């Protein structure tokens, strides 16, 4: 058992088991705010109170289902946008000279030097009705009424794409940078035009990078809490917001836990896909 296993047990497995356990308890007004699963009497287990009501409740209330679906949609659209924006950027960085490459990579990482929260707040200042963008557009006469950008899907996408773009670019870059450029020459030599070369040589070979980057964006975006809270719609919550409201507003830890477990279950599918592709690339390299 190495350090990675220990790391996973302490930081993932134990918290997961705790949350998993809570998701089957009954809520109560106490400290902690849930009933124990196992009842002990004189060191003997006398009863196990398993409550599946938290899970069935999630499917009866439309709020949860729609939040899940909305979160998946937002995450998926943001991932595609990140890919469309990030791929050309990663490609350009990977093909630039060694000096400018380092500068460009530096610029990609640079936003991490300021607080994430501050950067999202800055977008409020840019996007709000009397914010920078609207003021500029009105003063040059492009528009006469301010455009409502804040608290829309648009602002959520802006926030997520802006925040997660580096997570798309970096794995894509590290993939594209390793490409053997003689393959491109070979394809050109065999009569392929630039677009065909991209479609049949470069793109298939960058699949591992695309998948890694997409998962790094998609998975945290599904559970994103800060960005939709600050920039997002008020009539449609994302699941991260629902989760935190259940914990901190309703103090219904069992329901909150089942929301979390279900979200994890939803994310297992893309993670398994990722594993599958990773295995295939490793095999191909052998």
């Amino acid at each position, binding site marked *: 058992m190495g350090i990675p296993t220990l790391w996973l047990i302490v930081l993932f497995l134990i918290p997961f088991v705790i949350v998993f356990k809570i998701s089957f308890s009954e809520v109560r007004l106490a400290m902690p705010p849930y009933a124990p699963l196992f009842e002990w009497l004189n060191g003997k287990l006398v009863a196990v109170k398993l409550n599946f009501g938290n899970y069935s409740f999630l499917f009866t209330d439309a709020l949860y289902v729609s939040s899940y679906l909305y979160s998946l949609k937002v995450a998926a659209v943001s991932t595609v946008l990140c890919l469309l924006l990030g791929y050309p950027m990663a490609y350009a960085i990977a093909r630039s000279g060694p000096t400018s490459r380092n500068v460009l990579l530096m610029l990609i990482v640079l936003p991490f030097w300021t607080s994430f929260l501050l950067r999202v707040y800055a977008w409020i200042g840019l996007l709000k009705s009397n914010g920078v963008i609207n003021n500029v557009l009105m003063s040059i006469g492009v528009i006469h009424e301010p455009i409502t950008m804040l608290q829309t899907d648009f602002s959520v996408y802006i926030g997520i794409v802006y925040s997660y773009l580096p997570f798309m670019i970096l794995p894509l870059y590290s993939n594209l940078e390793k490409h*053997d450029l*003689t*393959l491109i*020459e*070979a*394809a*050109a*030599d*065999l*009569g*392929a*035009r630039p677009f*065909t070369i991209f479609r*049949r*040589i470069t793109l*298939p*070979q960058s699949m591992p990078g695309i998948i890694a980057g997409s998962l790094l964006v998609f998975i945290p975006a599904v559970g994103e809490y800060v960005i939709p809270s600050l920039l997002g719609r008020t009539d449609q919550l994302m699941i991260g917001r629902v989760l935190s409201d259940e914990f901190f507003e309703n103090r219904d830890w069992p329901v909150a836990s089942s929301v979390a477990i279900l979200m994890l279950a939803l994310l297992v599918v893309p993670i398994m896909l990722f594993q599958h592709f990773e295995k295939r690339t490793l095999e*191909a*390299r*052998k």
Partner: protein
Amino acid sequence: MRIENVTKRFGDFVAVNDVSLNVSRGEIFCLLGGSGSGKTTLLRMLAGFETPTSGKIYIDGQDMSEIAPYDRPVNMMFQSYALFPHMTVEKNVAFGLEQEHLGRDEIRRRVGEILDIVKMGQFLTRKPHQLSGGQRQRVALARALVKRPKLLLLDEPLAALDRKLREHTQFELINIQEQLGVTFIVVTHDQEEAMTLSSRMGVMDHGQIVQVGTPTDIYEFPATRFVADFIGSVNMFEGKLIEDEPDYVRIRCEELGAVVYVNHGISSAPDATVWVAVRPEKINLTREPPPVASGVHQPDGAGENVVRGVVKEIAYMGDMSIYLVKTESGRTIRVTIPNVARHADDRITWDETVYVSWHAASPVVLTR
């Protein structure tokens, strides 16, 4: 294929300097040169990956200046083979034909044909990483040949193969070339490869083609000291021309302490500094002074085309032995002697005093 005064500069560096060359249809032409001699740059210009700074390239009379790599009737086999790792052997070979928008059946037929020629017919569904080096080399060759190019460029085609496989593949390459009649231009730094493969070869140095000729021409009649030294091994002695007649010359070599008599004339100014090049396998090694072959021998054995020395090193190579003999003037002469007999107890050995001599027809006199 015709190259006219092609020059390629990278900044201040002249990679290819005013090269002109003709290669006829059906030839195997080897460009031989050390690293940085410009041979690869020249090849890349033929493929269209680099554009000449000046000069023109014609293939079948057609000017290639404005023609992109993907439109040229030229294919290249890359040194690294550059097989597409995510495609099977069949897909790799079919790739070029798919770009010509040929029918499915036509593509399948031609891919099958060419893979049979390179004896890779049973590996259709393998991926490149499942093949050995020699098999990859064949697939790369098939992929380049399947488009039936007018000109096939091969960049160090055998460099990645081990010695035995290389020898075997050399002859196969020649067979395939004869079968298909495609013109081959091979770039290599390996002189053995160039000698066995080529019908003609060009030796490159510092961006220029120094000499073009058949392998025999290049080996036996090198035009410059560079060529003589680059191809095979050679003993080179600097000397002064002391007699210059139409049918013989005499050259005094101070570093040899002897006069070299050559039984053919050369064109050079009298008293000019020239270089005498003698191949190690054209030199005899004897314990006694050899009978007079040419000119006059002095009583002590010193004289024309003969030098006395001491054996300093012997390297046994199996088929032959290399002797390094130190002359009284301090020069080391390299001599190779075939090991004809299996038990040769009286073989010349270390520290023996020997006479090094050669026939008057053996040396090549070089003026540059």
